[in-house]
């Protein structure tokens, strides 16, 4: 499926937010694949304080590059992209990791519900469709736990709360530019969306094994990850929805 087959895409100002931390090995291919899917996408690479040539590679490809002066973590990096989207008046934004695990050829899946006005946030899930996903026991446990918790909070079934392959419309951009969680943000961001009464939808996508580099989540950090996210979810329930929403 190409971009031309998606009704409404051509009229929208659209941005691909590519967070990258030491991804010199995979970034160029990610940029090229996004452009191959749809040359109309503006791309902003957020270099989260890389020590390798991530920024140079992005600049050489002629995309927008926001180079953070030091490593802030994926949450603040992604939010930098949303702030860029808000400041430059984009209609929709997609999040695609710079490590190559998200396949730009799967963009139609997460774009379609946003274009159709069915959802403000669309999450690409590894688990909804077919295809196996290999991971450690602790990570699988955490993923199950998050899915159950968030599904209960949202009263809507979710399978892959940690997926960073997402699309949002203007309302999502405004919300995430104003406030985005730290550290391990993907799960909390969904709960934020629920609290602010935005609509989300999960769609099946295929993901790839990382083409270069390695996941920032080591086995040792998984436990901290689970505890931290569960605590954050619990606290989020007691927080008012404090980002004002304009009507879409």
């Amino acid at each position, binding site marked *: 499926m190409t971009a031309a087959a998606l009704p409404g895409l051509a009229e929208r100002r659209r941005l691909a937010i590519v967070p990258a931390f030491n991804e010199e090995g995979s970034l160029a291919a990610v940029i090229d694949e996004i452009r191959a899917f749809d040359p109309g996408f503006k791309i902003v690479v*957020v270099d989260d304080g890389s020590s390798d040539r991530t920024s140079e590679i992005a600049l050489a490809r002629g995309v927008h590059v*926001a*180079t*953070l*002066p*030091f490593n*802030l973590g994926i949450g*603040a990096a992604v939010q*930098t992209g949303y*702030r860029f989207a808000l400041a430059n008046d984009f209609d929709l934004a997609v999040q695609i990791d710079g490590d190559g695990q998200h396949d730009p050829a799967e963009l139609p899946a997460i774009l379609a519900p946003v274009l159709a006005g069915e959802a403000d946030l669309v999450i690409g899930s590894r688990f909804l469709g077919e295809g196996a996903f290999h991971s450690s026991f602790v990570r699988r446990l955490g993923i199950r736990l998050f899915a159950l918790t968030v599904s209960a909070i949202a009263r809507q079934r979710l399978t892959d709360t940690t997926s960073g392959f997402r699309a949002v419309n203007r309302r999502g951009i405004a919300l995430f530019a104003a406030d985005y969680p730290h550290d391990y943000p993907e799960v909390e961001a969904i709960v934020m969306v629920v609290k602010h009464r935005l609509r989300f939808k999960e769609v099946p996508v295929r993901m790839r094994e990382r083409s270069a580099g390695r996941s920032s989540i080591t086995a040792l950090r998984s436990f901290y990850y689970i505890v931290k996210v569960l605590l954050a979810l619990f606290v989020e329930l007691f927080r008012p929805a404090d980002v004002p929403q304009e009507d879409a």
Partner: protein
Amino acid sequence: MTHTTPLSVSIIASIGALAMLGVVFELIRRRHLRERYSLIWLLTGVVLLVLAVWRQGLNTIAGWLGVKGYPPSVFFAALLFFVLVMLLHYSIVISRLSDQNATLAQRLALLEEEQRHRSARGAESEK
């Protein structure tokens, strides 16, 4: 039974408390310590000084609270409370600072990007 703090302990404790107040004051004077973060240290110094000089103080306060066995435990409890409050205060300050730090870094990155594009456009229009 009443204990009065031994005179030597009172003198040493008073000197200690005065020295602490002096150090805090000097740190403020040299701008190594901001006034707003120094208040709790000054308060701690004053409390220590009062307890050192007021030799019946610990007994009296322990009496109010009904502590019978070991009056200085009141002192340790108060000290522990102070330390915990201070640590909590610093955790709050650090959290706020890291938020502000992140926002600054983000703005810097976006400004640099804008600047780059502006100068690129400028270079093109000069041709």
